[in-house]
């Protein structure tokens, strides 16, 4: 019916309509728009862009756009197909078969095959995964019957494994660029070649990292953005200013002072959101050194728990970005979280009673004893948390000296020399507590100078046994029961006092759409994100 001539004009017309639609943000939101440069902040500047060799957050944020995983996690943390289109688990839970996506190429044009996966398992995940290599060592071997099938043969069943198979937890590196090299020093760690939606373009250290759209991305038509510039802006006030000015569209990982977040959230051009961190689920806690006075005594630990008003802490220090933590497994891990554990409500009188009972009476100056508190050297919020703890404990007669230091000194002191009394720290749980919680309580890691492990020095035969059993338990229900039991023990003995379930936040320009579409978004690609109007050229 349509003549060639009118077809021609119809094209012209539809282009016009499309263009017109662009200028009406309200309507255009339904229809993702292609193009534009996303200006983002990356802070601190990463040292590597390859999460497989360094699991630091900035590495994950940038590298997440360059790499894909076997799976990705949806907002409910369920694995969804990414490079693996589907997978089967054998009835004995010991064999997992992944069917890989066809037609995927690395950014340098080489085809992506099962060999890349098998090579990465043996040479990267097993020796180098910093979080939990045991998870991968449990995979006895990987078979590659054809170029798009990988079969994992597990020694023991492992449910937790399925929480670590995204592009961050199990990053697949291109075998053809890495084979035969030292993975840790391979130059491609700094100019990665992945399969993801964005291609690494340049990294001017101290200034920015530039990624460009992968035109050959397997998810045809995506990504929408032409370019992502991750700018390095070391100062929080300056970050807030760039966001306020609209120079920056996307800033993950709580990029600005909380007070500024509160302020910017009120601006029409800016949104502040806490989504996209579900896969991490981080929480803040105090580690007591249970091997030394005065925290050898459980009553003293409990007294401290009663002395700290978590809600006030969240309100004053964290400006509401958080939730009171009651157990070592954050409430967002709904299945595993156990609310029925000993709670230590804010009750200074009870705290003082416990201290009296422990024989630590107030002296003539009102002071029972003096301790040193090593606060986490991650910036002002953690320092203020320390100051809050100091003030809170002073009320029950404990004089606190705060000790500032840098990260290297902190981890050596707490996890190596164990020369501390009370330290603050935070940890990510990941969707399965086996990954993020075991390390904080297992006696295996005490004093071995492993950062962010068991700092308190807690050794408990029952919890050690629970960790062992839960790791290989194929029955999800039994596993959950074991983890709930663990939480009761942990909160009774209280080697570690959970304070806050942290809510990291992102700051976005209002015109940035679909920046968060998955549960592991923070370490995932901005495949779906688009800008609701042409980005300013300036």
């Amino acid at each position: 019916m349509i003549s060639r001539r009118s077809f021609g004009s119809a094209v012209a017309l539809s282009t016009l309509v499309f263009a017109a639609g662009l200028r009406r943000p309200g309507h255009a939101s339904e229809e993702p728009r292609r193009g534009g440069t996303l200006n983002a902040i990356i802070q601190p500047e990463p040292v590597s862009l390859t999460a497989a060799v360094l699991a630091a957050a900035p590495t994950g944020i940038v590298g997440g756009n360059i790499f894909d995983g076997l799976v990705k996690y949806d907002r409910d943390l369920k694995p969804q197909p990414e490079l693996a289109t589907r997978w089967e688990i054998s009835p004995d839970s010991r064999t997992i078969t992944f069917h890989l996506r066809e037609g995927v190429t690395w950014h340098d044009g080489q085809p992506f095959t099962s060999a890349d996966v098998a090579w990465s398992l043996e040479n990267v995940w097993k020796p180098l995964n910093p979080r939990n290599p045991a998870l991968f060592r449990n995979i006895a071997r990987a078979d590659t019957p054809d170029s798009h099938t990988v079969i994992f043969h597990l020694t023991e069943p492992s449910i937790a494994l399925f929480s670590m198979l995204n592009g961050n937890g199990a990053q697949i590196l291109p075998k053809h660029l890495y084979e035969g090299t030292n993975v840790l020093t391979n130059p491609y760690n700094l100019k990665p070649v992945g399969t993801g939606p964005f291609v690494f373009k340049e990294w001017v250290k101290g200034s920015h990292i530039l990624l460009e759209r992968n035109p050959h991305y397997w998810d045809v038509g995506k990504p929408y953005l032409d370019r992502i510039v991750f700018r390095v802006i070391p100062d929080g006030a300056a970050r807030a200013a760039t966001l306020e000015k609209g120079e920056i569209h996307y800033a993950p990982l709580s990029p600005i002072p909380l007070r500024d977040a509160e302020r910017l959230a009120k601006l029409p051009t800016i949104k502040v959101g806490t989504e996209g961190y579900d896969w991490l689920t981080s929480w803040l806690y105090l580690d007591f050194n249970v091997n030394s006075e005065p925290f050898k005594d459980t009553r003293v630990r409990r007294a401290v728990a009663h002395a700290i008003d978590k809600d006030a802490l969240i309100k004053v220090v964290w400006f509401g970005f958080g939730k009171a933590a009651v157990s070592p497994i954050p409430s967002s891990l709904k299945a595993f979280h156990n609310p029925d554990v000993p709670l230590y409500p804010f009750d200074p009188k009870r705290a003082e009673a416990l201290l009296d009972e422990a024989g630590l009476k107030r002296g003539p100056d009102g002071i029972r004893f003096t301790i040193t508190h090593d606060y986490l050297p991650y910036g002002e919020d953690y320092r203020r948390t320390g100051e809050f703890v100091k003030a809170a404990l002073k009320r029950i007669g404990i004089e606190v000296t705060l000790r500032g230091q840098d990260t290297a000194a902190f981890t050596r002191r707490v996890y190596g020399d164990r020369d501390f009394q009370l330290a603050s720290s935070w940890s990510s749980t990941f969707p399965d507590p086996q990954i993020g919680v075991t390390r904080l309580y297992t006696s295996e890691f005490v004093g071995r100078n492993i950062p962010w492990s068991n700092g308190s020095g807690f050794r408990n035969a029952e919890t050690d046994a629970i960790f062992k059993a839960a790791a290989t338990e194929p029955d999800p229900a039994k596993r959950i029961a074991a983890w709930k039991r663990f939480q009761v023990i942990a909160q009774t003995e209280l080697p570690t006092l959970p304070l806050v379930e942290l809510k990291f936040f992102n700051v976005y320009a209002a015109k940035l759409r679909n920046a968060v579409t998955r549960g592991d978004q923070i370490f995932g690609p901005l495949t779906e994100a688009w800008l609701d109007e042409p980005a300013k050229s300036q």
Partner: protein
Amino acid sequence: MSAVGLIQRLAPGVRWARRLAQIAFIVIGIATVNFFLLHLAPGDAAEVMAGEAGAATPEFMAALREQFGLDQPLYIQFGKYLGNVLTLNLGYSFRQGLPVSRLILDRLPATALLMAASITFALVAGAALGFLAARRAGHLTDTIISVIALLFYATPVFWIGVVLIVIFSVWLDWLPVGGMATIEAGYQGTAYALDVGRHLVLPAVTLGLFHLAIYTRLTRASMLQIYGQDFVRTAVAKGVAPGRIAVRHVLRNALLPIVTMLGMQLGSILGGAILVETVFSWPGLGRLAFEALFQRDLNLLLGILLASSILVVVVNIAVDLAYGFLDPRVEIS
């Protein structure tokens, strides 16, 4: 040829040899002092990297330590380092995965640009204000200039930086908040230079204000001192006009201590660059040094300290030469 003539011919060579020896001495001294100082720091690069990962296993840590060479005794590490330095090899930043020299050279232009711009600003504006204050000594202009200079001197640099951002970037929207260039614009040539210039204004002014205060005060003081000298009286007695006296006789001689001060201030400007580069996201050496310190990236930090020390020495040699041109009493070789 006479012996004197021979010495005359050799003299520049001898002097350069002495300067090279001075640099060599400083290099070895800096390397030694800092190597042992920095190794006093608790924790090492492996722990920092593991710390950033949010997790680590003993095996991972051991692998890192071996890779960084941290598993060797300190004296062997030092011997190797010194050997490398003496062959002009600054070593490798394992953390950054790049040779230290490359990292430094990448950052050096930004810092050099920032320093040059802020020194120029401080020197020109400072000398001008100081000149004005000295000419109007005791008057209101002098008081106002002196008070402003003191305020610049007394206000913490980072505070000035943040306030300038709020005023000129956020409120007035005249200048960018930070960074060195508009990356996404992909400017080339003149447009790029202009773009960098726009980004340079605030950091250079912030870093320069403190030193502007110093130069203002110094120019004023040395001009006043020179006003009291006999040759100025001679010029007055000749009937020379006050303006000409101020420029040709007084300012010209007052430049000498200013140039000396310039050489001495260089180290302090480099130090101030850390703060300014932080506030303005300027991708320079100061910030790199700061991060290297906290990441226990000792090769890199040592390299930067060495490089900045050498820079200070070299600039001071340049200042010596400049002094030779400014002051005929100093012999130039």
